[in-house]
């Protein structure tokens, strides 16, 4: 079964890939916060942020098209922000058939939300695509995520592919038995409620099997001396150059944010 599509990491020999995961995580989070804090309609700031993320994308050797495809995921949710078009106070721009109007301010706000969201998603994709998950998890741990949670997420990752594989095979098996008899006058598919409950049975089956599997995993862990404490090897600190990149990045983002707030 081919479920490796689930892993967002795409290996490349790029400087972005090589950058220490802890530094990358901090930079991406700072970037996202900058985007979030930048006021609406701060177009110069948005342009600079977009330029930054595009530059990083180019450096990552994955190609801008790759990121554009992934960032389109956020697009459908934009509809949730559509109401700001006509509920934001301001001079009307376009009258709506049912009364009220789209205001210029509303359009600005809507566009701001859309652009900010789009830029943010790209930064998130960049992080996931250039950092192997174990490193990302290590970075989260370094930034003080509780050890227990890190351990749970780590184990989840390990078994994610296995469980997704099982889920896909369950669906294949169901497909194989979803047929039309060819007898006249019969509608295939079964009742909707029946279909939902069968799906539930599949979920329950996944659950049970994972529970029983967890017993075996626990035994294997015990056999290797597990005593309830999760320990991991200390990672070497980032190199001075990487600290420099972090400092530089934070400086750039900080200035960008300050300027956008002052100049608006």
């Amino acid at each position, binding site marked *: 079964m081919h479920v490796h599509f689930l892993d967002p990491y795409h290996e490349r020999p790029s400087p972005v890939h090589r950058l220490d995961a802890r530094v990358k995580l901090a930079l991406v989070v700072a970037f*996202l916060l900058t*985007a*979030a804090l930048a006021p609406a309609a701060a177009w110069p700031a948005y342009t600079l942020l977009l330029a930054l993320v595009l530059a990083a994308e180019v450096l990552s050797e994955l190609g801008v098209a790759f990121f554009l495809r992934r960032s389109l*995921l*956020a697009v459908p949710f934009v509809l*949730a922000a559509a*109401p*700001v078009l006509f*509920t934001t*106070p301001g*001079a*009307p721009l376009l009258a709506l058939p049912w*009364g*009220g*109007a789209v205001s*210029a*301010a509303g359009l*600005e*706000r809507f566009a701001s*939300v859309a652009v*900010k969201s*789009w830029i*943010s*998603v790209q930064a*998130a994709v960049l*992080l*996931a695509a250039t950092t192997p998950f174990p490193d990302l998890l290590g970075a989260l741990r370094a930034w003080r995520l*509780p050890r*227990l*949670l890190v351990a*749970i*997420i780590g*184990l*989840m990752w390990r078994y994610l592919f296995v*469980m*997704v594989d099982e*889920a*896909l095979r*369950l*669906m294949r098996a169901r497909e194989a038995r979803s047929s039309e008899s060819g007898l006249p006058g019969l509608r295939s598919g079964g009742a*909707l409620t029946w279909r*939902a*409950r*069968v*799906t*539930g*049975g*599949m*979920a*329950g089956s996944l*659950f049970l099997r*994972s*529970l029983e*599997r*967890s017993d075996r*995993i626990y035994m294997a*862990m015990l056999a290797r001396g*597990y*005593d*309830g404490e999760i320990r991991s090897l200390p990672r070497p600190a980032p190199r001075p150059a990487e600290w420099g990149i972090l400092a530089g990045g934070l400086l750039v983002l900080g200035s960008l944010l300050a300027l956008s707030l002052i100049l608006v």
Partner: protein
Amino acid sequence: MFLHVTMHIPDGFLSVPVSVVFWMLSIVVILAALARVNRDLGEREVPVMGVLAAAIFAGQMLNFTVAGGTSGHLLGAALAAILLGPWAAVLVMTSVVAVQALLFQDGGLVVLGANLFNMAVVGPFAAYGVYRLAQWLARGRRWGIFGGGFAAAWFSIEAAALGCALQLALSNTSPASLAVPAMAGIHALIGIGEGLITLGALSLVWAARRDLLAAGQTARAGNTVVWVGGLLLTLLLAALAPLASTHPDGLEWVAERAGFIEAAQSPAYTLIPDYVFPGISNEAAATILAGVVGALVVLSVTIFTARARRSRHSVTGD
């Protein structure tokens, strides 16, 4: 990535103060869950939670055809809460939602706290509250498990959706009068799907490993407080919905404005004030904010009371 239950808010849609508040709420609950699970499950917790989180993630990929091209999916918060208890469910759902955001951009990272609140806090607790209520009402009869399971699943979806709508409203991204009915309405239907799937899963567990369902029955010290708290949270969110909807501030305002066209426009509009004081610029949102704070107080009291009682009853373990 798979777009299932449409509750994962992307970055950019919530204001920073709203994001911060919900981050804080979620962190409090997650830390409490970590402490609680550590006590209950001991060292088995890592393999159990980890693999079950993987199972829930995979379970969310299962689908069934609803009509034409649409398909129904599972969120799993209710199932997790029923089979593992609310605290473990919080951790499991946190892992799932966090990894979905980090790796698959299913939901943003700045707003992750808010998404966690909806799907990893409200979802499991609402489900747990409803489930235990049903069991208490059924007094050991089987419908408590299956009817309760269905209801718990429905409420978990509905409550999470309301949380989502409130967050959007508080950020002034979507007015409450629109977001609440829209989210509540759509997810009332999705909730039925969740209910049916949960029912199917519980049927299988009941047939194959009845002991797992019986284990959830044992009331431990503090659990009563927890599920009552969960129930109150659900009721609060449910009460806020009609309240928010009956404040047609958004539409009212538009109607007023449409009456006259301004030639001169004030340059700053309401952008900066909105940014600095989001949610307090209109009455409805202020009410909702109060409601959320209230829900929070209830939850905090619940948690701390549960902990205090637990330490008192630690020997008897009733």
